[in-house]
């Protein structure tokens, strides 16, 4: 049964959170490490991670460029243009990298996962699996979930790398800032533990969040065409909201 997340009532979000948690437990509790799980996960990493690469890299590059642009605009007034790399780096590693990557991932891969599972539901494939005594959660949902958790941090790293590249191209190539100062400020100012690792923790949490939401909504979609559409919409909406909410929660813990 699908319950629309637009349910009225204060308790509805709590119930939704509970359902997600139960689904997570069902997935993880039945894990049996096997070759087929590994192969399925690997295949899903390709479908979910590798296929998102292009959009992540393009967006990363442009985000880096616009960050550098804005930073230089702001810092020029204080004659502190040299701090560009520091400003870009801090905002990227801590916030923009993990959050933007996760949002893009939710839109591109999250919806694909939800739609695919929802379609399998609508064409009775999930039913058929159950009746063949195959656990569809283990066979279908779990590999996609694991693939998402693994892929999002890697995608975030690539987003960040491309963004720094974009900042380099803009600030050094276009604005003529000194390359040596750029890199040395970056390397001395970005802390490995607070900024870099903090960003990785966030991307792991976001990856788990989006993947869980996507497989849950796909699995509990109404087995109709409209049901699949609702599942994908709900995936994007709930993922986006929870990414930003958890971003605040994690940031306050890290600071």
């Amino acid at each position, binding site marked *: 049964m699908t319950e629309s997340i637009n349910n009225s009532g204060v308790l509805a979000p709590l119930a939704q959170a509970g359902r997600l948690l139960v689904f997570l437990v069902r997935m993880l509790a039945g894990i049996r490490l096997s070759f087929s799980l590994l192969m399925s996960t690997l295949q899903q990493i390709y479908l979910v991670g590798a296929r998102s690469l292009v959009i992540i890299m393009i967006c990363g590059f442009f985000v880096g460029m616009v960050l550098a642009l804005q930073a230089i605009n702001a810092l020029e007034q204080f004659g502190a243009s040299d701090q560009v790399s520091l400003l870009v780096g801090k905002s990227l590693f801590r916030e923009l990298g993990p959050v933007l990557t996760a949002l893009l991932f939710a839109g591109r891969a999250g919806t694909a996962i939800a739609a695919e599972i929802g*379609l399998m539901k609508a064409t009775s494939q999930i039913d058929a699996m159950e009746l063949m005594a195959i656990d569809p959660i283990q066979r279908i949902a779990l590999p996609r979930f694991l693939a998402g958790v693994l892929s999002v941090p890697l995608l975030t790293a690539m987003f960040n790398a491309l963004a720094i590249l974009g900042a380099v191209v803009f600030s050094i190539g276009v604005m003529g800032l000194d390359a040596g100062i750029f890199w040395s400020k970056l390397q001395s100012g970005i802390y490995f533990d607070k900024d870099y690792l903090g960003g990785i923790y966030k991307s792991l949490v976001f990856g788990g969040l989006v993947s869980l939401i996507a497989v849950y909504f796909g699995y509990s979609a109404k087995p109709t065409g409209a049901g699949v559409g609702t599942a994908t919409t709900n995936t994007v909406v709930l993922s986006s909201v929870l990414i930003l909410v958890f971003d605040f929660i994690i940031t306050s813990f890290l600071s």
Partner: protein
Amino acid sequence: MGIDQKDPIIRIKNLVFRRGNRTILDKVNMDIPRGGIIAIMGPSGVGKTTILRLISGQLRPDSGSVEVNGQMVSGMSSRQLHNFRKDVGVLLQNGALFTDLTVFENVATPVREHARLPESLVRRLVMTKLHAVGLGGTEELMPHELSGGMARRVALARAVVMDPKIVLFDEPMTGLDPIAISTVSRLMRETNDALGLTSIVVTHNVVQMARLVDYCYIIAAGKIAGEGTPDELCASPNPAVDQFMNGKIEGPIPFHYDTGSESWNLLQ
């Protein structure tokens, strides 16, 4: 080819199933005979698929019992159900082939799941069944490359690949052209007799049913309106059975949606 009335393979006693506040099945009793093709028929939405799911253990009855081949399905745990389903083959509506696997992998899925066999044996098992349904060369094709009839036959091969004792068919002829219908019907009869199965078919195609099945139940309004061999049913005086078998609009099975409102009921 005969059905054995004295040794029912499935015993359904006093089965009650409700959804919300609608009673879908109201104290239904069925003794499904062993060894033949049995049809469960009735108007759409009456609960035929529900009965299949109760037999396979996907649903639990609100009261009453479902006993399959000596095992009480209605009270089984997940693990027991897992073992039980090894002996039950299924062919769902539209075939339900796994769209991301080849034909071979589709038919091989139950084998891989329930038995640890060397690859050559798996291959032999799968190819035998594919040949039996006349699709010998298709094993590397993907489901979307098959026609409706071919996909249905692959699904049949998958349903019987583990030589189950019971096969459940949920509206197996939906969306097929007449030639495909005849082909699948004949294959169902052949596999049923060759493997000694009991096939339970949910359908509402009266014409094809009459030619194919050995025994039939007609469900209407949550109860069994009639049962018997196709000939017995055609000759039945029961008005509900008569209405269904002959496709009449007038009869005990209502035309108007029952809203419970007094004024509308006056029109009936």
